[in-house]
């Protein structure tokens, strides 16, 4: 039996090595504790400049800034921006008006029910609603692109109304004048 276990061990380890980046915690036969290359050094990373890792200014990503809020949620079968999100959209419009070199990609999303392609068109309506508001508030057409991810990129994957309401959403992604950013 010991011999059998050892040979299974060897084969399993060999197969695991062939896989595409198997997560370390799932390696069924990993003989030693596996660690990421940069973990366990005990040094906290502090960044002092006002640009984050995506190359965007801090005011777009700092959790304390309203501009770090990038999601607008919609009711079932609704494609208009609810009153509670008007200040958020206005804040993004203000930033884009003051920073003409910045662009946004608006991604519309839907819940999981129904045809993938029809949902793609419904998600487009949500992204378009945000785009229309931004344009009305003075943002230039060439700063904005509205697209849809349909039901393909749910942020929540259970078949419950609570989950579905999180997926009826439009997200705002930024790109700076240097071309660096989130899309």
């Amino acid at each position, binding site marked *: 039996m010991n011999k059998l276990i050892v040979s299974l061990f060897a084969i399993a380890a060999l197969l695991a090595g062939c896989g595409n980046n198997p997560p370390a915690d799932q390696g*069924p036969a990993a003989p030693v504790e596996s660690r990421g290359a940069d973990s366990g050094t005990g040094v906290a990373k502090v960044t002092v400049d006002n640009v984050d890792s995506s190359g965007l200014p801090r005011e777009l990503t700092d959790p304390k800034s309203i501009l770090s809020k990038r999601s607008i949620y919609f009711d079932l079968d609704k494609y208009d921006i609810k009153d509670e999100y008007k200040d958020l959209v206005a804040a993004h419009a203000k930033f884009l008006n003051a920073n003409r070199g910045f662009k946004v990609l608006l*991604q519309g999303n839907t819940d999981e029910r129904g045809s993938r392609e029809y949902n793609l068109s419904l998600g487009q309506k949500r992204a378009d609603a945000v785009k229309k508001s931004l344009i009305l508030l003075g943002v230039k057409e060439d700063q904005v692109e509205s697209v849809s991810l349909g039901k393909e990129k749910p942020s929540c994957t259970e078949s419950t109304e609570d989950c579905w309401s999180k997926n009826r959403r439009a997200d705002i*992604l930024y790109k700076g004048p240097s071309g660096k950013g989130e899309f």
Partner: protein
Amino acid sequence: MSAISRRLFLGFALLLAGAASAQLSIEITGAGANRIPVAIADFAGDAGLARALTSVIRGDLERSGLFRLVDTSGAALNESSAIDFVDWKDRGADAIAAGSLGTAPDGRLEARFRLHDVNKQVTLGGAAYVTSTAQLRAAGHRIADAIYEKLTGEKGIFSTRIAYVVKSAGRYELQIADADGQNAQPALVSKEPIISPTWSPDGSRVAYVSFENKKPIIFVHSLATGKRQVVANFKGSNSAPAWSPDGSRLAIVLTKDGNSQIYTVAADGSGVQRLTTSPAIDTEPRWAADGSALYFTSDRGGSPQIYRASADGSGAQRVTFDGSYNVSPRPAPDGKTLAYITRREGRFQLAVMDVASRQVQVLTDSHKDESPSFAPNGRMILIATEMGGRGVLSAVSSDGRIKQRLSISAGDVREPAWGPFLR
């Protein structure tokens, strides 16, 4: 067994399952009412190869749901054997096929067979196919197609291929497999979703929508070379490709001018023309096989319904009226029926409509059916559905009687597209 060795065992089994996960497995969950009893004698020749060939032929015919395999034990036959028709009638066979795996004059492997009508006591025909060990399954599918066509009068689909998308832990694969789920090969691997694959009429290319650039873009992908061409990457969303019957153009959905509307574009991405002009969503275009009409989904009447227009998009007429959600139209190859997805009491199910009489039949009792795709002979419809919380494919005969389930051990299978007849 100690806990550690049990864990190892489990781990090993999981790894094996992972290694085998590219293969679809097919389970028959319903069969036709009047199945033709057919005997497929063990092919003569090299024992191992001949057994493999025989089992491909038998598997194809049995899975079709149209045949019942008659026991052939004790029979040692090949394509030139005289057939004892009385004996085979006693065994309950209406037809018998016998053959062998031999060597062609040029030295290559050759699969030969002959098919006989037991009741009429005549030979229905036969053929020989040059093959190889690697191509043995293909030869089996060819023979099964020939037997199927002789006995049913319609072309077989055993030599066709299917495309589908497998989603597993942050990874999407567009796979191409034989119609029996074997021989699956990835054509595209991506971290982002891939949807709406659709075969060019000649079977050499697949058009699809990829989200690899954070938005939907349409590609045409040549399967043999892996060469990919961007066909539509306009501002906004680019989706829902459908080939014209002659393979020269694609109907596509763009939002570059506002709401989702149907356009056409040449297969090389040139010459975009707008087809529909409505203030609503127009999507999921599909040309009828003869090119005479264009079906699509639109919510211009307040709810998503299927419309039929001229091939140029003009003169749209509403086709579906039952219920408030009818989408994903797929005209059958003969144009007589239309498959689509209908929502009934919150369940999304496959339905077919007789185009002339407008009679509708719901074919499934599942609740998350999506993306129907006709086999090129119109006999079966492949759909994506959900079983036990996992995406699986299901093939349903267009009369609803025969049902097969195709699942994959590790991951969700979705977005099926049945390829054309092999040329």
